[in-house]
């Protein structure tokens, strides 16, 4: 079928790509753009490992037809995080809380945390649980991940 062409801002850089309209955004990100930090766990929207932000909103990229992402959209993957001060604060918090074990879920977790703290840098326990409810971790038992988010909130750069 005929390809579609889209121009997005990906991790701060403008990119123009062509692909079949229903190609999964996950595949465009991993295979076409080689941002392999974004992981495929289940491919069915359940695990959240493939989470990326579209204009700041977390979505599971395995469920998004890339053609449906309009021109001009800001896409942020885990690779884009360390380019921002907030992203670095978040990374450091995950490291010092020891929040990662095998690490497979972490790119998706980080994106969920980043989306939460960007909107609400003083989250309650309930806000944190709600924001990470779409992400599954098979290793940590979540306690240290929640701790990391709390720590990041404490150190979050506010204007």
């Amino acid at each position, binding site marked *: *079928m*005929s390809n*579609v062409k889209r121009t997005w801002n990906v991790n701060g850089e403008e990119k123009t790509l062509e*692909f*079949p*309209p*229903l*190609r*999964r955004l996950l*595949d465009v990100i991993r295979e076409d753009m080689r941002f392999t930090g974004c992981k495929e766990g289940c*491919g*069915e*929207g*359940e695990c*959240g490992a493939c*989470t990326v932000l579209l204009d700041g*909103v*977390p*979505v*599971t990229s*395995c*469920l*998004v*037809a890339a*053609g*449906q992402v*309009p021109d001009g959209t800001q896409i942020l993957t885990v690779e884009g995080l360390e380019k921002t001060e907030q992203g670095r604060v978040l990374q450091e918090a995950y490291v010092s809380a020891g929040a990662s074990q095998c690490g497979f879920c972490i790119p998706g977790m980080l994106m*969920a945390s980043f*989306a939460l703290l960007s909107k609400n840098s003083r989250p309650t326990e309930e806000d944190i*649980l*709600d*924001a*990470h*409810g*779409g*992400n599954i971790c098979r290793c940590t038992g979540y306690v240290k991940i929640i701790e990391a988010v709390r720590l990041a909130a404490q150190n979050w750069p506010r204007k």
Partner: protein
Amino acid sequence: MKKLEKSDCRFPSTLKEALELLANESTRGRLLAGGSDLMVQWAAGMEPPPRVISIKGLKELQGIKEDDGAVVIGAGVTHAHIRSSKPVQKHLPALAAAAATVGGPQIQALGTIGGNVANASPAGDLAPALLITGGEAVVASRTGERTIPLTKFFLAYRRIDLKPDEMIVRFVLPKRAAGEIEVFRKLGTRAAQAISKVMCAARFSVKAGSFETCAVALGSVGPTTVRLPKLEEWIIGKSASEETLAEVEKRASDEVSPIDDIRSTAEYRKWVSGRLVRFLLES
């Protein structure tokens, strides 16, 4: 997934254009909104259709508006938007609560009310909250619009009253009256992402110690989400007493005919339906 990449997808920029595509058999395709049902089905091996029409972002399907008696929600409005909408929280609190329990944040950002209703899963979380409003679905085709009461819209398991050239455009949902309480409860195995075992929504009022109005809907207890008309009729005028509530539990349980499946048993669902309705009407 490579199969899906062979399908054609159109991106109409207006509703009119989308309805034109639907009207003509040679351009008609499967409507794709947020994709949170369809992309999963295709990933799970269902044969993708040759043609898809993306309706995501169509302006005519967006927005939550309020008039005197009703809240009007576009079919393309997401769960995330519904749960955070002030008019919905105020006038349709059961719907706000239901939208907040759909999947996790990522799914709420993608999934739409139109897709949830069109999917017509008996485990769809929005249906009970929609049914208790006594509201309507508005569907459109190239030739015009049709309005269908939501109580008649769900025809059978995964089937709604929609013709091949039609799509849902909006929902008109009467606000709760002053004094009416709305509640929603979902029983699942875990809070986020879980498909419900049973869910229930109720809208009711109690005046001078007696039930004055009452609408109750249950999901996952049959092929479609159902209201409980016999119970609703019986309860009017009854005192809000322990005795009435015990009878409510029994009658609610008797009025549903659930099935066994991988998520639960019919017996449990029957019992819990009674408990759940009682619990909501106690609040």
